[in-house]
C-alpha cells in the first residue's frame, strides 16, 4: 500500500473545465472520502487516478512512482489501482470465485485459498464462491466487487459511489462491511460520494469538493464542526446563518449573544476587531427550544415541524421576522403556533460577511441542501 499524491490536476472536456487544479494527499492505509454534489468533478478525479482518462496537466503519484504527469500516462492496467464501480460491475458470465480471481495471475487463479480469504475479508461465507452475480443482492455484489479489487494487492483502491444504488437499509451495513475490509487489508482507499452522512461516518478524512476544486480536507468532526465557509457548512449538514456583530469572542445576533469558537476563519490582525459585522453559523441541534415561561433566551413562535421520529426540525419565527431551524428530540415536539424561547448551546462559527450583505439561509429538514 502506498500513499497517493495529486498535485494541480486539471481536466477539461471540450469547453467545460471539470477539474481546476486539484491537490489531494491520501496517506498510506488511509480511507479518504471525496464529498461533493453531482457534477463537481469527483468522479473525473477518480478516473484520472485510475488511468481511464489522461490528465491535462498536474501530476499524480503513487508512492514514489509518478503515474500521471507532463508527458507521462501510465496505462490503467499497470497502475495497480483497484476500482469499484457504482453498480459493482461484476462480470455476469463469471461466478463469484472467478470474478474475485479475475485480476490474479493464471497460477494464483487456481488456488481456492485466496478467494476464500477475500470472501472472509468482506464478511461473506465461502459458500458464495460458486454463485453468479444475478443470484446476489446489491450489497453482496458490492462486497464481491471490493474483494475483486483487493485481490491483486493494489496500491490504492478507488470506490466510485459504491453504495449509491443500494436501498437505504442495505447502505449502512454494506458501507461498514466494505470499510472494515479495506481497513483489515490495510488498503489506501479513496471513496467518492455525494452523501455527506456516508462520507462522515465511513472515512478517516473527508475532502469536500466544489466546482472542480478541493475546498476543505479535514477529519469528519472538523468538516462538520469547523467548515471553512458557509457553502461547506450547508453541504455537510443543516445550517442556520444569521448576521451578527462580533465583539471579543462573542457575537450578537437575533438569537442573542453567542460564543464564537476562537474566531476561526479570521486570520490576521482584524480578528478581534470590535463591532465587526460577521455571519454566524449555527447547527440546528445547537438551538435549544425552551418553554415560553423560561427567562433565558429569545422569544420565538413555532411555524411548523417536520417530524422524523428520532428527532424533528422545527421552523421558528423570530421577533425580527427571521426564520431559523432547530432540531428537537422526537419526544418533545413543540406544537405549531406555540410560543417558545430559544437558547444557543456551545460555540458557533463566524464567517466574514460576503459582499457586505448578509444572507440568511434556512435549509429545511437538515438534509443536504444544494450549494447555491
Amino acid at each position: 500500500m502506498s500513499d497517493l499524491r495529486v498535485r494541480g490536476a486539471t481536466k477539461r472536456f471540450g469547453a467545460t473545465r471539470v477539474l481546476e487544479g486539484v491537490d489531494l494527499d491520501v496517506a498510506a492505509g488511509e480511507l479518504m472520502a471525496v464529498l461533493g454534489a453531482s457534477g463537481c468533478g469527483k468522479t473525473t478525479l477518480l478516473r484520472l487516478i485510475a488511468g481511464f482518462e489522461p490528465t491535462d496537466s498536474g501530476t499524480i503519484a503513487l508512492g514514489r512512482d509518478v503515474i500521471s504527469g507532463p508527458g507521462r500516462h501510465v496505462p490503467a492496467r499497470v497502475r495497480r489501482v483497484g476500482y469499484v464501480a457504482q453498480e459493482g460491475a461484476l462480470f455476469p458470465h463469471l461466478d463469484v470465485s472467478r470474478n474475485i480471481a479475475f485480476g490474479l495471475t493464471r497460477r494464483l487463479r487456481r488456488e481456492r485459498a485466496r478467494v476464500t480469504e477475500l470472501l472472509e475479508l468482506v464478511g461473506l461465507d465461502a459458500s458464495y464462491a460458486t454463485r453468479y452475480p444475478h443470484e446476489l443482492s446489491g450489497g453482496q455484489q458490492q462486497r464481491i466487487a471490493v474483494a475483486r479489487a483487493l485481490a491483486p494487492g493494489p496500491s490504492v483502491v478507488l470506490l466510485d459511489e459504491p453504495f449509491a444504488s443500494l436501498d437505504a437499509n442495505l447502505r449502512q451495513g454494506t458501507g461498514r462491511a466494505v470499510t472494515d475490509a479495506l481497513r483489515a487489508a490495510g488498503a489506501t482507499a479513496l471513496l467518492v460520494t455525494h452523501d455527506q452522512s456516508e462520507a462522515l461516518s465511513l472515512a478517516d478524512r473527508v475532502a469536500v469538493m466544489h466546482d472542480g476544486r478541493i475546498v476543505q480536507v479535514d477529519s469528519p468532526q472538523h468538516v462538520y464542526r469547523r467548515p471553512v465557509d458557509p457553502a461547506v457548512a450547508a453541504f455537510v449538514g443543516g445550517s442556520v446563518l444569521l448576521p451578527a456583530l462580533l465583539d471579543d469572542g462573542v457575537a450578537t445576533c437575533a438569537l442573542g449573544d453567542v460564543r464564537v469558537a476562537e474566531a476561526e476563519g479570521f486570520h490576521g490582525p482584524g480578528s478581534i476587531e470590535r463591532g465587526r459585522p460577521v455571519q454566524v453559523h449555527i447547527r440546528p441541534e445547537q438551538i435549544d427550544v425552551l418553554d415560553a415561561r423560561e427567562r433565558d433566551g429569545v422569544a420565538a413562535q413555532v411555524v411548523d415541524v417536520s417530524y422524523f421520529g428520532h428527532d424533528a426540525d422545527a421552523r421558528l419565527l423570530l421577533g425580527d421576522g427571521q426564520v431559523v431551524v432547530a432540531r428537537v428530540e422526537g419526544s418533545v415536539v413543540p406544537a405549531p403556533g406555540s410560543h417558545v424561547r430559544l437558547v444557543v448551546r456551545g460555540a458557533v462559527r463566524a464567517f466574514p460577511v460576503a459582499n457586505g450583505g448578509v444572507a440568511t439561509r434556512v435549509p429545511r429538514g437538515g438534509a443536504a441542501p444544494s450549494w447555491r
Partner: protein
Amino acid sequence: MVLLTLIPLGFVVVYSLDLGVGELWRLLDRPRTAELLSNTTRLTVAAMLTCATLGTAAAWLVERTTLPAPRVFNALLAAPLAVPAFVNSFGWLSLTPRVEGFGGALVIVTLSYYPLVYLPVAAMLRGLDGGLEETAHALGLGRARTFARVVLPQLRPALLGGSLLVGLHLLAEFGALQMLRFPTFTTAIYDQYQSTFNGPAASALAAVLVLGCLLLLLAELRVRGDHRYARVGGGAARPLPRTRLGATTIPALASLSILVVLALGVPLGSLVHWLIAGSSTAFPLGTLTSTALTSIGLGLAAAAATSLCAFPLAWLCERHRGPLSTVLERSTYFGSALPGIVVALAFITVTIRYARPLYQTTAMLVAAYVILFIPRAMISQRAAIAQAPSMFDDVAHSLGVGALSRLRRVTLPLIAPGVGAGAALVFLAVVTELTTTLLLAPIGTKTLATEFWSNSSSIAYGAAAPYAALMVVISAPATLLLTRQLGRRAS
C-alpha cells in the same frame, strides 16, 4: 461495407436518372402499370389493416384476458413465421384453386404475416403499467374508453411498426403472389426479367417499387423515432389485471383455434398429405440431400459473412454513438429494406457491367444475402454489445488485464450468445429465401427453395412437398429465436 448495402438503391437511382424522366414515363404509362399499381396498393393496404386487426385482437386475447393456456397460444400464434409465405400458398393452392386472385391472396398473406404485428403488440401489452389503466378507471373512464384512450395510444409504436413491416414484406413478396396468380410489381419485374432479360421495363417497375418501399420506410422511421413511451417515475410497474372472459371464453378459444388451424394447420397438413401421397412416386433422396446441403451451406456462409460485416457497425453504433454511426446504421437499414428482387436486379446489372467475373458466382449470391439480412444480425449484435458496457473494460483494465486477454475473457464470452443468435436468424432467412436465390444462384446450384419452386410451378405437388417440409424443419428452431427477439424489441 456500407457502400455495398447501398448498391441496390444506387442502381435504381442511377438507372432512373440515366433513362430520363420522359423515357421512364413512357415505359410506365401503360394500362398494365396502372393495374399493377392498383393491385400492389390494394393488397398492401388491405393486408396491413387485416394484420393489424387480427394481430392486435389475438395479442389482447392472449395477454390481457383469462383465456386458458395463454403460453401455448402465444407459441402457436407466432409459429406461422416458420412457414414461408410461398409454402403457405402452396398448401392452400394444392387444396383448392379458388384461393387465386385478390381475396385468396389477402387471406394467405394475412395468415402468413399477422405475427409481425402480433409479436410486438403482445410484448407491449405485457409491458404496460397496470397502474395507468387503474388511474383511468379512477378518473371515471369505462373499459372501452380506457382501451381507446390509454391502452391503444401506448400500443401505437408497436402496432404501426408491425403494420409497416407487413407492408414492406408485401411489397417484396414474390413466391406466394406468383403462385396465386395475383400480379404485383414484384412478380411483374420477375416476369419482365425472365422474358426480356433485364430490360429497361423491369428496372422502371423496380424504381416505382423502391419508391413505395422508401415511403413505408420513412413512415416507419417516424413512428420509431418520435414516440417513446417511457414510464414516468421510479417504482415497479403494477402487474396487469386480466379481463374476465366468462361466457365468451368458448367463442374466443374457438376463433383463436381457427386462426391457428388456418395459418399453421392448413399448410402443414397439406405438406404431410403430399408427403404421403407423393411417396408413391420415387422419393428423390439423393437430390433432397444435396439441395438440403446446398441450402445449409449457403445459409452458413451467409450467416458468417453477415455477422462479420455487421459487427464493426454494431460496435460503432453501441460504443461510439454519434452522427456518423447513425448515418451508417440508417444506410444499411435503407439498403436492406429493398425487396430481394431489386437487390438481385441491381447485382446482375452491376456485375455484368463492371465485374463480369463475379456474375453468377456463389460469392455474389452471398453478398446479396448480406445486404438483405444485415439488420437481423445487427439487432442481435447491438443488444449483445449493450450487455458488455465499457464499464467492464475499465474494471478489467484496473485489474491489470491487457486488451487481448480482456477480449478473450470478458468481451467475447458476453457477446457470443447475441452474435450467435443474429447468425442463426440470418441462416433462417437464407434457407427460406426464394426470390434472390432464383435470380442470382449460379447455374446448377439448387437449394431447397428453388427446387420446391420449380416442382410446384410445374404442379408436381407431391415432388415439391419434401423440400418445403425440410425448409420448415430447418427453420423452426431459428424461428423460435426470432419470436423471442421480436417480442422483446417492442417492450
